[in-house]
Structures are given as C-alpha cells and as structure tokens.
C-alpha cells in the first residue's frame, strides 16, 4: 500500500467510526467489519481505537445479551463524541472541497 494512503486512512478512521455510531450503536465486530470493507484497514486496529475513544469519553459502552454466544459490548456516541463528529465533519468537508477545487482547476488547465 502507498504510504500516503495509509496516512489518509489514519486521518479519517476516527471520523468514520464516529459517523458510523451516530447512525446506530454498534459492537466491535460490526464496526471492524464495516470499516474494513469501506476503507480497507486492518480489523484489529479498531479495538485500540475504541479504547482510546472510550477513555476520551467520545463513546460509552454497554453489554447486550447475544442470541448466540457471549454478551456483546456495544458502543454508543456520547454528547462529547457528537460534538467531535460535527467538528471533524465540518473540517473534512472544507478540506475535501478545497482539494477538489484545486484538482478540478488543474484538469481544466491541462485539457
């Protein structure tokens, strides 16, 4: 994988997890498998990330009995997490718009 791509993914992983949790509470495996598909990252990474977010109080956890197997640890967005998501989302939108504008301008210039 290109080093640059790794850096990009690193940057957006937090944002993606927060966005995922905004829609619905989820448990670790769910988050890991969805994001692994979406942005091609190692599934194992999600657990250190969730621990950090929990300590930063962006998410809270609760246990739910599973129909099969042991109880699942669900993650829920806290108010602080919601605020963080709003801020990061705005920053992301601004950034991508600026980059797109530059890329489009470049294309027009060469064609």
């Amino acid at each position, binding site marked *: *994988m290109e*080093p640059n791509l*790794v850096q990009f*993914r*690193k940057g957006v*992983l937090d944002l993606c997890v927060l966005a995922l949790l905004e829609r619905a509470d989820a*448990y*670790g*495996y769910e988050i*890991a*498998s969805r994001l*692994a598909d979406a942005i091609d*990252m*190692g*599934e*194992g*990474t999600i*657990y*250190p*990330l*969730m*621990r*950090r977010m929990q*300590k930063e109080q962006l998410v809270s956890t609760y246990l739910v009995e599973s129909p*099969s*197997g*042991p109880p*699942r*640890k669900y993650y829920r967005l806290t108010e602080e997490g919601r605020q963080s998501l709003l801020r990061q989302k705005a920053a992301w939108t601004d950034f991508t718009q600026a980059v797109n504008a530059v890329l489009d301008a470049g294309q027009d210039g060469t064609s």
Partner: protein
Amino acid sequence: MNEKDDFMRRLAGGLRGMPKDTATDILQDYEGHFGEGRRAGRSDADIAHQLGDPARLARELRAEAGIRRWEDERSMAAALGAIVGLLGLAALDLFIVIPVLITILIVVFCLALAAVCIGFAGLVILPFAILNILPSSDGSWLQNILIGLGLFSAGVSGTAFCALFLIGLTDLVSRYARAHFRLISPGASLSAGV
C-alpha cells in the same frame, strides 16, 4: 497450532506487564471478535489475517496505555512507562528522534544538576552571611546576604525551569507518537512502514 490460539497467545504475550484487568479486557475484545467471525462463517485463519499482527497491536495498546497513564498521573514512573511504551513501538521515525531526545535529556540533566548545586551553594552561604562570618569575602554584610539569596533563588528557578521543560517535552513526544503510530493496515502492508 490453531490460528486463533496462536493469535491470542502472541497478543497475551505482548500485553504482559500491563495491569491485569486491562489486559483481560483487551483479550476479551479479540476473543469476542473471533467468536463473531466464526458465527459469520469465516475461518480462524481469515479472521486472524484480517486482524493484523498481534505483536504490533499489543505494542500499540501498550504505548497508548502508557501515554494515557502519564496524562492521568503525571508521575515519574508514569513518564518512564510512557517512554518505554513508545520505545516499544520501535518505529523508524523514532530512531531518528531518539538520539536527539537523548542529547536533550542529557543537557537538561546537566543543567538541572548545576541549578541544584547553585541553589545549594546559596543556601549554605546565607547563614554565614547573615552572621557576618563569611570567610574570604570583602563585600559588606548586605552584599553577602544578597549574593546568598540570589544564588539560592537562581538555583530554585533553574530547577523549576528544567522540570517544566521535561513535562513539556514528554507531552510533545506523546502527542507526536500518537499522531504517527496509530495502526491502520493489516499484516501485509506493515512491512511498508507506517
């Protein structure tokens, strides 16, 4: 040996030395992940491969826990824990940073030592000066007292400055490390470096 057992054994090995309940908690997360994956019909080998290198995951978890402890406690032991945890990451960037860091630490240590000595000298001089029995001094009584006080306060402020500098440095290194060494990629792309 089964891939799951192998993964869990290597992860547990990497987490050795962490507080027991934290390590158990982490192991349970991954244990649950294998359980869910199996129920979704995936093979242990596939799940383990997608999770990535357990040794590296353990290093990241340890480093994160170390930094966290430093932020919570601000004790010398916690600072050492954070630094040891960061060294455990053994990332390439750090090899460039380490010599610089070591040099800075040595310089700060020498400065702190000098500051302590100066402060101590001032403290020793002060009672002699007050009693006006300071040997080998041609200054007046007041001059000697002021010299003693001056040396003492210079020493104290120098020591305090070094302490503040060390605290700032640890914060900075922690932030730097967290920004650089967050893991994303599974085993395959690790060799490419992060």
